[in-house]
């Protein structure tokens, strides 16, 4: 696994980007934050499209920028693929020539990905001889991704590549991106302000706010941090858990998922046993019971949990976030009134009633 070490400090008329971080690159790393927080600027700094004075950037042992020695590799000399928000295909070339443009310029010894592979995985065969201007938006973006892959990059940068597409195309391309990660083992840094994409794709999350990196870590951990509600909207916070399909209960039309913390029952899923499935348990869908319920509950998923952290209590806010441990982190949003009534304290064992499990592949609807 390689590591991207970055130190940038760039000032613009309206904001300032200040980043100093070592980012472990494995799978898909999503840079997330509200519009205007500097996500694209950060990506352009990585690519060398923006030069930060006194900046530093290295991928593993390869230094791309070191202003103390005035070293700065232009984008064309960095082994980086860049997929822009718009496809930016070359209008005077057909699809095949677009795909091979970068491949032809990649030294033979560095070529690890072939045209055939890319055409197969992205389903581009029927488009090859078409003019780039005669494709739909989704097709164009697929060609743009393929074109970037054919330079055999060490790092693939993607700047909201789905933002201009409809839901159907989004699903399609997300599936492609997930396959890329598995097939080519190229680390991806993916910029997004759309939570559904983030939850579906991210392994690691970088949270950016007003030009500063405010959190970095595995997606599941960041989404179950107390206080994260200040960055991510209330309705989206909650633990993200990677599960595996364990069993189908035909009689009640349920599917059982297993994860490090136990089991979850969800409505029947059309997935084979053993397949992995990422789910999110929204904090507002978790309620806490201090004493084991003597009464019967209609909630299917009740898990034993330990109180790990009680979120900042704000006098003007009715709600407070509680971080729990169920073998993995879980976040619950309860009212301050309930907190007082339950007399919750750190280390306490409680029962977490999970009212709903969101399946992340449904998010795009």
């Amino acid at each position, binding site marked *: 696994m390689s590591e991207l070490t970055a130190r940038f400090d760039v000032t613009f008329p309206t904001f300032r980007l200040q980043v100093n971080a070592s980012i472990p690159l494995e799978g898909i790393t999503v840079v997330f934050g509200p519009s205007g927080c500097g996500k694209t600027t950060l990506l352009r700094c990585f690519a060398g*499209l923006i030069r930060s004075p006194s900046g530093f950037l290295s991928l593993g042992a390869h230094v791309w920028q070191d202003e103390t020695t005035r070293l700065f590799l*232009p*984008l*064309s000399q960095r082994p980086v693929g860049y997929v822009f928000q718009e496809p*930016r295909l070359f*209008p*005077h070339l057909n699809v095949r020539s677009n795909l091979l443009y970068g491949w032809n*310029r990649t030294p033979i010894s560095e070529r690890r990905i072939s045209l055939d592979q890319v055409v197969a995985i992205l389903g581009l065969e029927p488009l090859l001889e078409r003019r780039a201007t005669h494709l739909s938006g989704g097709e164009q973006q697929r060609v743009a991704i393929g074109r*970037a892959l054919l330079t055999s990059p060490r790092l693939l940068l993607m700047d909201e590549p789905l933002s201009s597409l409809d839901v159907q195309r989004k699903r399609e391309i997300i599936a492609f991106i997930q396959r890329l990660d598995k097939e080519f083992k190229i680390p991806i840094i993916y910029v997004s302000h759309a939570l559904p994409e983030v939850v579906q794709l991210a392994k690691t999350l970088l949270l950016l706010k007003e030009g500063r990196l405010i959190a970095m870590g595995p997606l599941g951990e960041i989404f179950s941090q107390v206080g994260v509600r200040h960055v991510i909207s209330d309705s989206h916070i909650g633990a993200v858990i990677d599960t595996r399909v364990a069993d189908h209960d035909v009689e009640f039309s349920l599917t059982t998922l297993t994860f490090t913390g136990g089991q979850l029952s969800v409505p029947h899923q059309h997935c084979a046993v053993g397949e992995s499935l990422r789910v999110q348990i929204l904090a507002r869908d978790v309620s806490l019971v201090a004493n084991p319920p003597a009464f019967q509950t209609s909630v299917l998923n009740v898990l034993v949990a330990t109180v790990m952290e009680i979120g900042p209590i704000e006098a003007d806010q009715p709600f407070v976030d509680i971080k729990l441990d169920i073998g993995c982190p879980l976040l619950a949003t309860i009212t301050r009134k309930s907190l007082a009534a339950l007399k919750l304290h750190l280390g306490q064992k409680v029962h977490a009633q999970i009212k709903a499990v969101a399946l992340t592949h449904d998010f795009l609807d």
Partner: protein
Amino acid sequence: MPDIDLGPLWLTLQLAGVTVVVLLIIGTPIAWWLAYTRSRARTVVEAVVAMPLVLPPTVLGFYLLILLGPHGWIGSASQAVTGSALSFTFSGLVIASALYSLPFVVQPLHGAFESIGRKPLEAAWALRASKLDTFLTIASPMASRGYLTAIVLGFAHTLGEFGVVLMVGGNIPGRTKVLSIAIYDHVEVLEYTQAHMLSAGLLLFSFLVLLMVYTVNRRLPIHVS
């Protein structure tokens, strides 16, 4: 059928051709710089390039005559190297025409590069193309309509010039006597038939060239919007 000397016609075509080539070589980097620079000097350069549009040709011709003559600094430099000054020579005419037609070449190219924008260039860089490579394989073909317009306007404008050529080149048959001046000469001595033939020839030629250009332009596959 009166005798007409076709010398001025060939000389004019030669002058226009050479001028266009010179202008493409000079105009491309200027237009490129204007389209992509963030320098404050941009507006100044834009204004300088546009000057020949508003200046009377005689003003431009007058200063060029002085500059290119044996006592001007360009003319004297040329004299030191080649043994003759540039005023009243074909080379002098090329320099003068190039300057006079500069905006007609730079402006279409500037517009074409500007409408391409930075985005395709960044995409090419990300595909490992160097800046020169990007210019040759992405920007130039995408700007092909701009180039066509620049060539036609530059050529046509050089065909039609009169004042600058007269001032700098004089009226030396076989060397600097171009078509527009030849027509003027014929009219002055009331040789209307000859004037008619040359004028009609130029008219027809210009029309045919423009017709061809617009036909080709329509068929060009690239639409950069």
